């Protein structure tokens, strides 16, 4: 549906986006992930035809943003990061204005505005001026605006930014629901958002793609990195040897901790297996006493930090 090939965009000296390529399939919800200033917004502005790339191209449904930008723009609904709204208009008038600009017929406008009011739960604020609305409602108006013409593709730039936790959940559910029929690209720097809503994640840092995989794959990779911390007493030699024989154990390494009565081991397990039961049995057989055993799953956060470490500044607390 969207094909980005060798896209480069520079602002003066600085490369905001550096030769990136990826595809978004029809019906996919793609999470576009990266720290602030990684190039997410720039890429989205190019996809939506707000500005041209310096090199490379983007095609949307087969149309190039450079040569057929009008066709591209027809297919896309866009919620910019700043979510611009006319603050002196009320919600209905604003949606009507956007529907007018999108060239919807009068009948269709009425129907679509009604649908948007339902989908985005706007019925309480219909005739309020936009400048009286809370951030959460403004964001919903922004979403309604983006979807008013029933576009095949939704580009949402940080759709949940500045919302309270309940509103975040509402908007995420809404996006998930939309993603059943539409192709959605959403950018965020919040990892749980990707975990909660997306099928696939593209992680970008300093204008380059550092990871591009389905969320299932990403999850599996993470599980592959599962490790078990084991602390035992009463063990003689050969602990590593015995543990290594257990199915699902890849590597056993002794770690030396202070203030520990026994011996500690770090066991790496192979993907998709959980050998803790076997470890327990083995310990019983050998006469060891297990003082502690815990499993550590590397979170998406860890992967993200690792992939984007060079540029991340400590978050302001």
């Amino acid at each position, binding site marked *: 549906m969207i094909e980005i090939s060798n896209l480069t965009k520079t602002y003066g000296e600085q490369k905001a986006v550096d030769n990136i390529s990826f595809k978004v399939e029809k019906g996919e919800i793609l999470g576009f992930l990266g720290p602030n200033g990684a190039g997410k917004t720039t890429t989205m502005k190019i996809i939506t035809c707000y500005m041209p790339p310096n090199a490379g191209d983007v095609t949307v449904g087969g149309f190039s943003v450079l040569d057929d930008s009008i066709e591209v723009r027809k297919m896309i609904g866009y919620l910019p990061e700043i979510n*611009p709204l006319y603050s002196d208009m009320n919600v209905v008038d604003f949606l009507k204005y956007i529907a007018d600009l999108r060239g919807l017929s009068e009948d269709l406008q009425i129907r679509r505005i009604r649908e948007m009011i339902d989908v985005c739960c706007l019925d309480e604020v219909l005739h309020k001026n936009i400048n009286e609305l809370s951030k959460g409602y403004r964001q919903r108006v922004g979403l309604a605006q983006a979807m008013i013409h029933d576009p095949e593709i939704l580009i949402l730039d940080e759709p949940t930014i500045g919302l309270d936790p309940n509103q975040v959940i509402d908007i995420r559910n809404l996006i998930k629901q939309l993603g059943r029929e539409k192709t959605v690209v959403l950018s965020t720097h919040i990892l749980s958002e990707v975990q909660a809503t997306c099928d696939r994640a593209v992680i970008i840092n300093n204008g380059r793609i550092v990871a591009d995989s389905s969320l299932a794959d990403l999850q599996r990779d993470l599980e592959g990195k599962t490790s078990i911390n084991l602390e035992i007493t009463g063990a003689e030699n050969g602990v590593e040897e015995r543990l290594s024989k257990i199915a699902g154990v890849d590597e056993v390494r002794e770690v030396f901790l202070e203030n520990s009565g026994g011996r500690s081991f770090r066991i790496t397990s192979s993907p998709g297996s959980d050998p803790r039961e076997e470890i327990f049995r083995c310990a019983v057989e050998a006469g060891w006493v297990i003082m502690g055993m815990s499993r550590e799953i590397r979170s998406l956060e860890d992967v993200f930090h690792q992939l984007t470490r060079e540029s991340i500044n400590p978050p302001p607390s």
Partner: protein
Amino acid sequence: MQNVWPIFKRELRAYFDSPIAYVVITVFLLFTGWFFTTNFFVAGQADMRVVFGIIPFTFLFFTPAITMRLISEERKTGMMELLVTMPIHDSAIIIGKYLAALALLVAMIIPTLVYVITVASLGDMDVGPVLGGYLGLILMGAAYLAIGTFGSSLTDSQVVAFIVSWVIVFAFFLLDKTLFLLPGWMVSYVEYLAIEYHFQNIARGVIDTRDIIYYLSLIALALFLAARVLAGRRRR
């Protein structure tokens, strides 16, 4: 081009939902009304010369004030990002907004017809110059507004937009006032470029296509440039 209409409607509403339209119209009428009443009864001639003499001067300040927010405000609030990512031609955005400004200008001029009625009731008025004068006013105002629209497209600050537009408009206004400083061969060229020269022609009641073409091409050029500025972002 069917997109011009919603933009026009929205823009006109923005003028009349806010104090802008009312302030502009009121101040304009106070200004011209004062000149009309203080001079007309002294001059004792049944024509609109006083009014047509002062309005071009007031346009210098009123037209940039009308147009300054047109594009720059949209750029500042980020609304422009939404507008240009919709399937609308850049020229439709410019023309829609420009026409709204023009509608406000016409709404501002219409009440001055009261002076015409006053003049006509007091003496034997020659209709030709009055009709020509109004046509000229609208054409000249339209040209100023087009320049103002261009000025507004350049920046996201309304103040800068006002000043830039005013400088350009004032330059066109000054051209035919500097003729005596110029060498003879340049006079006719510079005179043709001057905005008020053509107004004076039309206001005499003689409608010459050259004057009309001058205004229309100035409007087209300014709007074209404004659309180019908007589209400039889209070029590599």
